[in-house]
C-alpha cells in the first residue's frame, strides 16, 4: 500500500522535505535501539519503505512525491539536506516547478491562472507515481493556506485529482498562517482554500503556525524559533501518524475519524516533545504520563486565543472521534489510556466502540523509546477557523484587496458563497 504525496508551494515543500527526512530516518532507524526483533523490524521497514518510497532498478530510493511550485528556489533544494548541503539519501524525481513568477499571494491567480500552466505536468506526474505503485491507498497533499501557490494551485489540483481518482482517499494537510499576519491577503486565501477543499478531501489535518510556534517556545524552550523547528514538529507528528501500524491502513482509519461529512477537521497531538539538551536527563516516561500529556494538550492550542473564548471552549470540548497510536516497546494498558475514554469528552450520539480507536506498534519511532500521537476531531477547530472568517469578513466589508481577485474572475458573489460554506462548518462544530 502506497501513498502519493503532493507538496504545494513554499510551505508545502518545506514541510514535505522535513516529512520525508523523518520517514527515511525512521525506516533506517538505529538497529541497536529498535525495540523489536530483526524479523519484525524488516517487516516494518519494508512496509514503510514501500509506502513512501519507490526503489528503482539501481537501488536508489525515490520519494513517491510530487513537488509543485511556481518558482524553483525551494524545490531546487529538495535533494539537498539544507543543513550541511549533503545530498539526502533519497531523491525527489518528480518536480513540477515553472518559474514565471510566483502566484503573488493571490488565491485567484494561483487557482485560475498558474494552475493552468502546471496542470498537465502535475497530472502526468501523479500518473507516473501511481504507476510505480502496486496499490495506491491515498493521495496526501501538504500546503499552506496563506500564500498563492499552495492555496490556489493546491485547491485546483485537488479538485482535478478528485475527478481523476474518485475512489482514493484524499488527505490534506493545511497549515494556517500566524494570526498576526504573515501575508496581508492570508485570510482571503485561507477562506477560499477551506471552502474549496473541505468538500473535496476526505479529511484535513489542520495546523496553526501560532500553535506550533507556542509548542516550540513552551515545550522545546526555544527562544529563536525558525521555520525549520516548526516544520520539524509537523513532520514528526505526521510521520508518527502515517507510519504503518500492523495491518491497518491508517489513511482509511483517519478518513473514518472524519466519517460525518460535517466534521472533517483533524488535529494532531503528540508526546513527548523535549528539547535536545533536556532529553539526556529525561527519564523514560510511562504511557500513563504521556497519555495525560496528550489529554491536556487537547486544550493547549487554546492558549493562542484570548482567555474568554478559550475557557469557554475548554469547558465544552467535544470530540467526534479520536485515534491514538502508541509506538514503542510494550503496549499501554487499558488503565493507561483511560483519561481519553472519558464519556464526557465525546458527543453523546457516538457509539462507545468508535469513540477512541487505539493502535500500537512495538517498533519504536525515530529511535524514541516511546512516542504517543493522537488524532482528534473536535470542536476546538472553531477557534482558528472563526478567526480566519472574522478577519476575512472585516476586509471584505471594506472591499479591500478585492480588485486583485476580481482580475481573475473571483467576484464578490464567489466570496459570499465561500463565507456561507465556512459559516456552515463553524455552526456545525459549534452545535456539538
Amino acid at each position, binding site marked *: 500500500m502506497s501513498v502519493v504525496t503532493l507538496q504545494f508551494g513554499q510551505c508545502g515543500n518545506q514541510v514535505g522535505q522535513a516529512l520525508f527526512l523523518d520517514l527515511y530516518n525512521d525506516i533506517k532507524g538505529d538497529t541497536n535501539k529498535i525495540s523489536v526483533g530483526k524479523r519484525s523490524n524488516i517487516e516494518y521497514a519494508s512496509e514503510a519503505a514501500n509506502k513512501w518510497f519507490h526503489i528503482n532498478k539501481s537501488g536508489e530510493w525515490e520519494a513517491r512525491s510530487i513537488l509543485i511550485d511556481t518558482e524553483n528556489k525551494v524545490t531546487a533544494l529538495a535533494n539537498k539536506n539544507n543543513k550541511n548541503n549533503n545530498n539526502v539519501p533519497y531523491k525527489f524525481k518528480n518536480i513540477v516547478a515553472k518559474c514565471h513568477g510566483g502566484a503573488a499571494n493571490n488565491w485567484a491567480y494561483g487557482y485560475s491562472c498558474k494552475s493552468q500552466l502546471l496542470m498537465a505536468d502535475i497530472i502526468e506526474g501523479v500518473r507516473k507515481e501511481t504507476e510505480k505503485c502496486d496499490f495506491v491507498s491515498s493521495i496526501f497533499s501538504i500546503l499552506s493556506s496563506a500564500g498563492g501557490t499552495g492555496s490556489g494551485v493546491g485547491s485546483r489540483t485537488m479538485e482535478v485529482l478528485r475527478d481523476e481518482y474518485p475512489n482514493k482517499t484524499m488527505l490534506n494537510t493545511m497549515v494556517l498562517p500566524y494570526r498576526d499576519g504573515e501575508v496581508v491577503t492570508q485570510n482571503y486565501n485561507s477562506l477560499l482554500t477551506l471552502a474549496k477543499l473541505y468538500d473535496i478531501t476526505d479529511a484535513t489535518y489542520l495546523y496553526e503556525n501560532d500553535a506550533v510556534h507556542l509548542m516550540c517556545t513552551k515545550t522545546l524552550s526555544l527562544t*529563536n524559533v525558525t521555520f525549520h523547528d516548526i516544520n520539524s514538529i509537523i513532520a514528526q507528528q505526521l510521520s508518527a501518524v502515517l507510519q504503518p501500524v500492523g495491518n491497518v491502513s491508517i489513511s482509511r482509519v483517519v478518513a473514518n475519524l472524519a466519517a460525518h461529512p460535517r466534521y472533517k477537521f483533524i488535529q494532531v497531538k503528540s508526546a513527548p516533545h523535549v528539547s535536545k539538551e533536556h532529553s539526556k536527563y529525561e527519564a523514560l516516561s510511562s504511557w500513563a504520563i504521556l497519555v495525560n500529556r496528550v489529554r491536556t494538550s487537547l486544550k493547549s492550542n487554546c492558549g493562542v486565543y484570548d482567555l474568554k473564548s478559550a475557557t469557554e471552549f475548554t469547558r465544552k470540548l467535544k470530540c467526534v472521534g479520536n485515534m491514538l497510536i502508541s509506538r514503542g516497546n510494550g503496549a499501554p494498558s487499558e488503565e493507561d489510556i483511560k483519561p481519553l475514554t472519558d464519556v464526557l469528552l465525546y458527543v453523546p450520539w457516538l457509539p462507545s466502540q468508535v469513540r477512541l480507536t487505539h493502535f500500537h506498534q512495538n517498533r519504536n519511532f525515530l529511535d524514541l523509546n516511546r512516542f504517543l500521537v493522537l488524532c482528534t476531531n473536535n470542536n476546538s477547530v472553531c477557534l482558528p477557523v472563526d478567526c480566519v472568517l472574522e478577519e476575512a469578513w472585516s476586509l471584505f466589508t471594506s472591499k479591500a484587496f478585492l480588485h486583485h481577485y476580481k482580475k481573475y474572475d473571483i467576484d464578490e458573489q464567489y466570496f459570499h458563497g465561500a463565507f456561507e460554506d465556512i459559516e456552515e462548518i463553524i455552526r456545525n462544530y459549534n452545535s456539538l
Partner: protein
Amino acid sequence: MSEFITIQVGQCGNQIGATFWPSVLEEYGFENVTGGVATANLNNNNKKHFSSNELHSSFNSFFSIPATETCSSLNTLSDLKQSKVKARSILVDMEDSVIARYKTGPLRDLFDDQCIVTNYPGSGNNWAEGFCYHGPRYKNKILNSIRRAIDKCDSLQGFLLMFSVGGGTGSGLGTYILQLLDDHFPDVERFVSCVYPTGTEDVITCPYNMALSTKQLIEHASCVFPVENRALLDIVTRQYNNNKNSTLVPKPTIVEYKPFHDMNNVIVNMLLHLTSGSRFPGNINVDINEICTNMVPYPKMHFLSSSFSPIVSYSTKTSYVSSQPIKDELFRAACSRNNQLLKIDPLGLKSVLLGTTLVGRGNFCISDMRTYVERLQTKGHFTSWSKKSVKIGLCNIPPAEHNAAMLALFNTTAMSTLFSHIYELFEKLYNKKAHVHHYTQVPEFEKNYFEECKDNLLKNIEAYKQMENCKQKTLPRAI
C-alpha cells in the same frame, strides 16, 4: 529565477543606474568595479555565497548570460566581458552626455548598444516635449529595445523604471514608456522608483512636470516607490555629520562629500533590498509581485513609502556584527521617520497604515519578525481592517557590506501630504498661468491635460482622506 528589466530614463535615471550596476555586481561578490579602492575584504562574506549555487543562479535576475556559459566561471569584470554577459537594461535619454559616460566607463561592455536610445538636444525641462513629442517619435525604437530585452528572458517578473519627475525627459518620456508598457505588456508588473526633486527644485517648470507625471503614475504603474530629494538630502547629511563627529573614522575631506552620489546610492540600496526576495532564497520568500497584492488595498493607491537600515553611505563603509540588540535597532531604524525616503512619518499621528511589509535580510528568524510585527501593531495607527495587514519576508542573503538588514515598506495615508505638496506648487504657478505656453505650444499637448491632472491629484488626496476618516463598519457576518 525571476528576471527584471530596468529602464533608466533621463539624466537622473541614468545617474541612478550608474550607481546601481556597480552595486549589483558588488552584491554578487565582484570586486569593486568603480575603479576606487578595492574593497575585496568586505566582500568576502558574499564571495563565499557566490560559489554556492544560490547566488550565482540569481545572477540571471539582472543579467543575461549566453546559454553556452556557466555562471561559476565568472569572477571578474573581464570574465563578464569575455562571455558576453549583458545587463538587462534599457538606457533612454534625449541627450548624450550622461549615457556617453556609460560608453567609456568600466562597465561599458555590459550594455547592449541596441538597448540605448539617445537623441540631441534634450527635452528642455518640459514634460510635454518628452511625453507628447519625443514619446511618439521614439515609440518604435523603444519598443524594439524592450522586445529585444524580453526575448532574452525566461521568466520576466517586472520592469523597474528609474527616473526623476522634475525634468523633461525623465518625467515626460519616462511616463510615456510606462504607458507603453501598460498597453503592450499588461501582465508584467511595472515598478517605478521616481525622484521628486522637492527641496532642490532647480527647474522653474518642475511643479508642472511633477504633477503631470504623477497623474500618469497613478494611472499606469503597478507600484510606485517615490523618493524625495529633501528626505535623501537629510539622510545623507546626517550620515556625513555622524561621521564627522565620530573619532573612529578619519575625517573625510570635502572632496569625499558627494551628496548626489550618496543620495543615488540610497535609492539603489532600496531597490536591491526590494528585489532581494525575488532573487535570493529565504524562509519566507517575497516575490516582488506579492508586494502588489499585499500593499495595494484599492486600485490607484499604490504609492509606497520605503525605508531600510542600515543606511551607510558609499564613502563610509563599516561592517556590523549582527547580535540581537543590533537586529532590534535595525527594525527600529527602518520604521523611524528619519530613514524614510520620503518626508513622511509612517508611525506618526497623521498616518493611518493601510499595509506594511517587513523584509529581514541575513540572520533574522521568525521569532524576531513576530516581535516586530507586534511592536508595529501597537505603535502604528490603522483602519478597522488594516491592523493585520502586515507582510513579512525573510531572505537568507544579506547585502554586500553587512550581516543583516531590514527593509520596510508602508502604504500610509500620509502619502497624501506628498500629493498636497505637489498640488500646492502646481496651483501657485497655474493660477498665474505662468509658463503654460511652453506646454501648449507642443502640438500634441491637449489643453485639458492640466485640468485633468489637477482633478486627478485632488481625487487621490480625497481618497486618502476618506481612508483616514473611515469609520468602522459593523456589518454582522452574513449567514
